[in-house]
């Protein structure tokens, strides 16, 4: 008895009950399709998060001031604490010390405050005003669309110049070129020297509703000379980010006389954000995959169920086949082939459906197919046919011909 003949018998068996075969196939189709699609959705969202984070600048490190100040202008040691390491301000001197550390390309001390900008005709409130050094722009991946950045010279002389983010610029000046125009920040006049290109939103806040001015000017006119909000450190290359992070921590711990336990700063880099985000995305993908795998399992149980019904229904036929010489092996092969065909047809259609499904954007995520998920889902569906079809096929193969022939 050739395998081709067994295959033909199996096809004839499936064709005898087309609707039932189609519905059983549908169960596997949905299972395999959802494995491929959901894993692709998980993968797609993980990739879009990674892209967003790496656009922040792979070699930029932010040192955040965390405790010990009620605001940049607050007195440094107002608390009556007797703790050994009093929380201290993050200062320009700290930033200059960091500039000496190994692997550091540039250091930009940052103060930030929310201000209302006014050009006499229009006002724009809630603009994030940043006071910093010119080195801040490359560290933050900012680019100009109009004018120029302010210079180190302008920082040293505390000139009232400002670079506007694209949203702040369009709110105040519409389509007019803002360069050379005057703008009031909290009533103090500033000259606009440049406009930044649009960066897009990151999370809830717009990265474009900003204004960036020299550090000295902002401290003089608005925030006073208290603690910096943060220091942006640019590593010489992204591979040195980890080393530089360690350097920053040891330099600041030394200067502030403290240990890791009572540190008054946080060191954040794109790579730390990236690893947190990718582990979250990985969990998400695994969860989606697990849900899909369960639906594949349910499809497999559907195959067992339908094959059991088929075997019972065809008991008499099995008896006839055995009476005219079908060996248990041939009967087993026929029913196993039927089950495996069902699951493999379902698997193939599921792969097709999954691939088509990933061409659409799903809940705001552009799915990206994980190539391994296709052979894996298809292979599992074939194995499901063998495994879940095995029990009914075995039952058919071991029927006693005399009993099977008597079955009504």
């Amino acid at each position: 008895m050739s395998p081709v003949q067994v295959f033909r018998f199996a096809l004839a068996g499936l064709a005898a009950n087309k609707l039932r075969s189609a519905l059983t196939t549908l169960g596997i189709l949905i299972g395999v399709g959802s494995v491929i699609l959901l894993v692709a959705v998980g993968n797609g969202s993980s990739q879009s998060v990674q892209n967003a984070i790496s656009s922040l600048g792979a070699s930029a490190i932010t040192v955040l001031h965390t405790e010990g100040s009620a605001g940049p202008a607050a007195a440094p040691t107002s608390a009556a604490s007797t703790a050994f390491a009093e929380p201290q301000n993050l200062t320009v001197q700290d930033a200059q010390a960091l500039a000496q550390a190994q692997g550091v390309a540039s250091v930009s001390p940052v103060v930030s405050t929310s201000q209302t900008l006014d050009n006499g005709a229009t006002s724009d409130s809630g603009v994030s005003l940043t006071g910093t050094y010119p080195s801040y722009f490359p560290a933050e991946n900012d680019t100009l669309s109009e004018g120029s950045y302010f210079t180190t010279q302008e920082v040293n002389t505390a000139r009232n110049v400002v670079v506007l983010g694209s949203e702040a610029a369009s709110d105040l000046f519409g389509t007019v070129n803002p360069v050379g125009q005057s703008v009031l920040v909290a009533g103090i006049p500033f000259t606009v020297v440049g406009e930044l290109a649009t960066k897009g939103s990151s999370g809830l806040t717009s990265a474009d509703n900003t204004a960036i001015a020299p550090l000295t000017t902002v401290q003089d006119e608005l925030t006073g000379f208290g603690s910096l909000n943060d220091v942006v450190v640019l590593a010489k290359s992204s591979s040195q980010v980890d080393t530089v992070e360690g350097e920053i921590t040891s330099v600041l711990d030394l200067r502030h006389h403290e240990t890791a336990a009572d540190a008054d700063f946080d060191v954040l880099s794109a790579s730390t954000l990236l690893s947190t985000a990718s582990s979250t995305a990985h969990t998400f993908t695994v969860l989606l995959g697990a849900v899909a795998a369960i639906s594949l399992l349910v499809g497999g149980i559907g195959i067992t169920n339908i094959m059991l019904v088929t075997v019972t229904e065809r008991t008499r036929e099995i008896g006839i086949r055995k009476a005219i010489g079908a060996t248990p092996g041939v009967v087993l092969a026929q029913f196993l082939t039927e089950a495996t065909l069902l699951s493999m047809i379902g698997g193939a259609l599921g792969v097709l459906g999954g691939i088509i499904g990933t061409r659409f954007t799903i809940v705001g995520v552009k799915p990206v197919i994980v190539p391994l998920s296709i052979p894996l889902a298809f292979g599992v569906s074939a194995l499901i046919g063998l495994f879940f079809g095995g029990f009914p096929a075995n039952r058919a193969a071991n029927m006693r011909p005399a009993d099977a022939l008597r079955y009504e």
Partner: protein
Amino acid sequence: MMTRPLPHAAGPPSQAHPEPVIQLVSVVKTYGTGEAAVQALRGVSLEVAERDYVAIMGASGSGKSTMMNIIGCLDVPSEGQFLIDGIDTSALDEQQLAMVRNRKIGFVFQAFNLIPRMTALANVELPLSYAGLRGAERRYRAEAALHLVGLGHRLQAQPQQLSGGQQQRVAVARALVTAPSLILADEPTGNLDTRASADLMEVFDRLNVAGRTIVLITHEADVAAHAKRVIGVQDGHIVADRRVTAPGALPPYLGRPTVQP
């Protein structure tokens, strides 16, 4: 699939006493165990010679269906021996029994038992498929068998498109297509009208003339009248064994001067 050889018959067949096609030696068949045990056969011994045409008669419950299952290798005796072509079936496993059924026995059932949704030709080809024959030879032999039973014009018909008599003739074609040692028919006319019954019995008579050994199980006297030997079964025993003509002679109906093969 069918590569394992069957065990050889013990001893060479002698010319003077040709080996019996089937041989039952004190066969007992018990269903169930303990208190609920029912003895369907209580020690049956029987030999059927080559070219013989035997009718086994008995009322329902007499044990004739059990006998048919054992002769057809569909069931095994609880005690005693059953030999077909000298092969002791108690020594065979399921796979070898399947081979014996395929090569040595052709079944004809009361309910026809064709496989639905398969053409007459495909039904007749089926035992040849299980024997491992190639497509072209299968087709050639199956067509020949269908021509022999007078259905050469209905090769592509499905069972449900055929009359009862035609279905039963397809079943006969399927039984003889493997050239078995024995054709075993269980109430073959039970579901047929008089006309179709007569046609079918004529087919059996001609097959016997052509050299086939036939065992018929029936409770109809006019069917049994076609046989060369009639055996009566009652309560699991053989109670009658009447020889009509010799195994080598023409069957009684065909032996009549008016009908010639």
